[in-house]
């Protein structure tokens, strides 16, 4: 009588090879023979590889030289892993800078250290909303230090899912979920980024280069406004400094950056698929919710003995006209201070802070950032009762 296994084989109708008796070598594991050996194309692989390596080195060197010749220099990329390494440096009593790129470019860490007695940790980020980081600090039971929060009204009330919220949210999430492999990659990437100019993740990647192709679009195509070009450097502490080319008044780079801020700061039209009234109502609710959330986070921080001060940094030119029209001081700034009960420093209120000019309308030059910080310190000390 045939065994059940034989029946099984017969039903399967599999080839003899699969069930044949194993050879001596195979019987070590008793398994089927090694049925599959990948074919290897027989070409002159050594010559091909050497040629490929030479071409790649030559192409990368040429690209590097070209990038340097048009003004790019080596600097770190501001990604979630670099932010996470800074977040890791926050101690219970640290001074922490959060918010957008104005708090990032306009504050000098050396001057702050001299004036406040502690070296602050820089957690502000370009185009980022302050709220996710504020919430993260509020939820960190160990933290009872000092928070300096830069406010660009449009970014502070950016709705969930918008790029400013995504950017900050991703960084916060990464700081909680960073894997050892991601951490190692960051350590390996930093020396490369400090020496190679074309390693700019938001500027010179293939994707960015393709986005810059001058191809006309359909009338209704929804194309994200372009981000500003490279105008600053970043170090391992996440200190941002404007490069000299941009700081030079009237430079082409400064002019180009000015042009880019306008569409970036102009509110997009409401989506066509939602009635305008309904959209305005939803946005109003989202903004109110943000005020409540910010107030709750501040309350939580202060309950633990932490201090917070909101700061409005200088901005100028056409961008100032636009921002003051779209987000007047009485709208968001005053409401934040009222709801949170926290102190605020609005640069225009102080003549010694009001006289600075932003070369590209949004940030101070590296030199001005030092002077501005020096002058800001007494105001910070007063606001924070230090």
């Amino acid at each position, binding site marked *: 009588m045939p065994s059940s296994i034989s029946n099984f084989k017969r039903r399967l109708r599999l080839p003899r090879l699969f069930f044949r008796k194993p050879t001596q070598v195979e019987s070590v*594991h008793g398994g089927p023979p090694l049925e599959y050996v990948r074919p290897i*194309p027989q070409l*002159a692989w050594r010559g091909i*590889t050497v040629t490929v390596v030479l071409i790649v080195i030559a*192409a990368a060197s040429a690209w590097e030289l070209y990038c340097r010749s048009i003004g790019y220099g080596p600097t770190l990329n501001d990604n979630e892993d670099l932010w996470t390494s800074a977040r890791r440096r926050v101690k219970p009593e640290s001074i922490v800078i959060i918010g957008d790129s104005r708090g990032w470019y306009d504050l000098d860490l050396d001057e702050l250290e001299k004036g406040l007695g502690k070296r602050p940790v820089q957690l502000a980020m370009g185009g980022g909303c302050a709220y996710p980081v504020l919430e993260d600090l509020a939820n960190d039971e160990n933290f009872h230090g000092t928070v300096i929060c830069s406010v660009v009204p449009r970014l502070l009330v950016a709705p969930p899912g918008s790029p400013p919220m995504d950017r900050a949210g991703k960084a916060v999430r990464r700081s909680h979920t960073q894997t050892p492999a991601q951490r190692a990659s960051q350590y390996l990437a930093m020396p490369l980024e400090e020496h190679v100019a074309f390693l*700019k993740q938001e500027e010179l990647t293939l994707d960015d280069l393709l986005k810059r192709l001058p191809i006309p679009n359909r009338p*209704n195509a929804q194309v994200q406004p372009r981000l500003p070009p490279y105008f600053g450097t970043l170090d391992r502490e996440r200190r941002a400094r404007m490069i000299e080319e941009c700081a030079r008044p009237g430079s082409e780079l400064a002019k180009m950056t000015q042009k880019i801020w306008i569409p970036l700061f102009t509110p997009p039209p409401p989506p066509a698929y939602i009635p305008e009234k309904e959209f305005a109502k939803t946005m109003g609710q989202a903004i109110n919710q943000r005020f409540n959330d910010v107030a709750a986070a501040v309350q939580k921080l202060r309950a633990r003995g932490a201090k917070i001060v909101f700061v409005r940094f200088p901005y100028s030119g056409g961008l100032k006209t636009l921002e003051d029209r779209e987000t007047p001081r009485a709208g968001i700034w005053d409401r934040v201070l009222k709801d949170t009960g926290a102190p605020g420093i609005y640069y225009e209120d102080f003549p010694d802070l009001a006289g600075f000019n932003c070369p590209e309308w949004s940030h101070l030059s590296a030199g001005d950032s030092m002077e501005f910080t020096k002058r800001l310190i007494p105001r910070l000390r007063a606001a924070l009762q230090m």
Partner: protein
Amino acid sequence: MLFNSLTFVVFFVTVVAAYWSIRSWNARKNLLVVASYIFYGAWNPPFAALLFSTTAMDFWLGRQMSRAKGRRSRRAWLVASVCMNLSMLGFFKYGNFLLQNFQWLLARIGIIYQPPHLDILLPVGISFYTFHSLSYTLDIYRDVLKPTKSLRDFVLAVSFFPQLVAGPIVRAGDFLPQLVRPQPLRPGQFLWGLLLMTLGLFEKIVLADTMLSGSADRIFTYAGPLIALDSWLGVMAFAGQIFFDFAGYSTCAIGAALCLGFHLKDNFRFPYAAIGFSDFWRRWHISLSTFLRDYLYIPLGGNQVRPVRAGTNLVVVMFLGGLWHGAAWTFVVWGLLHGSYLVVERVVRALFQHRAWANHLATRILGGFATYAAVCIAWVFFRASDFTVAARMLGGMFGGHPHGDAILSTREILQIALVTAGMILVHWSLRDSNIETAVMRLPRWVVTATWAFMACAIILTQGSSNAFIYFQF
């Protein structure tokens, strides 16, 4: 650890250098075990212990099964292995999904139950290594594999780092024989492995992430109605993205294994040149489809049962295949849709396969495009976050929103069109061949230029890339 990360570059160079500088075969295998666990632990170290415990249990169960005398006790050990593996998968992958559905069912009969949300972190690649490990006990039960005496070898077979987290699903029976004695490197094998790794990274970083993923994401996350052109382009972008993402990972895995002297089978064979859905599944994720065929479809009766039963079996297998991909009903619908496609194809073949026009070139080309279109329709459910999104997408694709929005830029449209056309052209031109034959036929300068182009494009993307889609499965 991602293949497209600097950490992996350093890791791989170190492992390869150490591997080939060691003479002892046992020491080499020990090195690979340690390296594989570092590779896995670099994501979340505690889950390496879970990986080891699953592997050790299956090793032990395999032994017990081979020692068991009667068929009943063998079956009992197999059941133990299947339950252990599937319960592990069930807890980590389907825990919250099952609870949510249980809650929904209770609500239907009027019982309000608020289950606690289980904060379960899904171990990366659990669906893959569970199947690697499970294939061992299944093959021992089927009498096609004798248990290995070496726990180290089995641990390596399950955890071999190139295929550990996102496949291909390499069966223990395919890998263990390669651990018997060192596999000598054949001329060109190492460098061909490097070229395959470059190709895989190019597919993933350049084609999937740079050229297609942005458009696919924009279309699938757009909250408003879209016109047919944009809807179809979004789905085609995703069809290309998921192919290049997953096939890219498999190609990298095959290349990395070749550099270490191991041979993994193809996981993709130009699937978008498939004519019919059975052909598609012979070309797409081959290691999963053959796994389901051998361990599920054939034991259920395969083709040897009545047509209605065989059709039902197909749908059941594809339902489970869909569920394997993710704990959501959208994946189940994707699987059921493919099951239905396969059943319809059988009926159509039975009715028309002997007609003269059935094998005409025009019919075949038409069949190919119909297959691609149907596969794209199924991808809607695979990619959509829920049924509302899927319904909106399908509505757009079939002209339901003639006054909908047109959001893609001309650049995005060109990228999708060029990459999709290139992909389909390559698939059709190589559908009855393989990449090795194609490379052999190319002039040397073309191979050199293509390799250099791919490497330069990878450098230009600067690694600002996403995780592989199949990591989440």
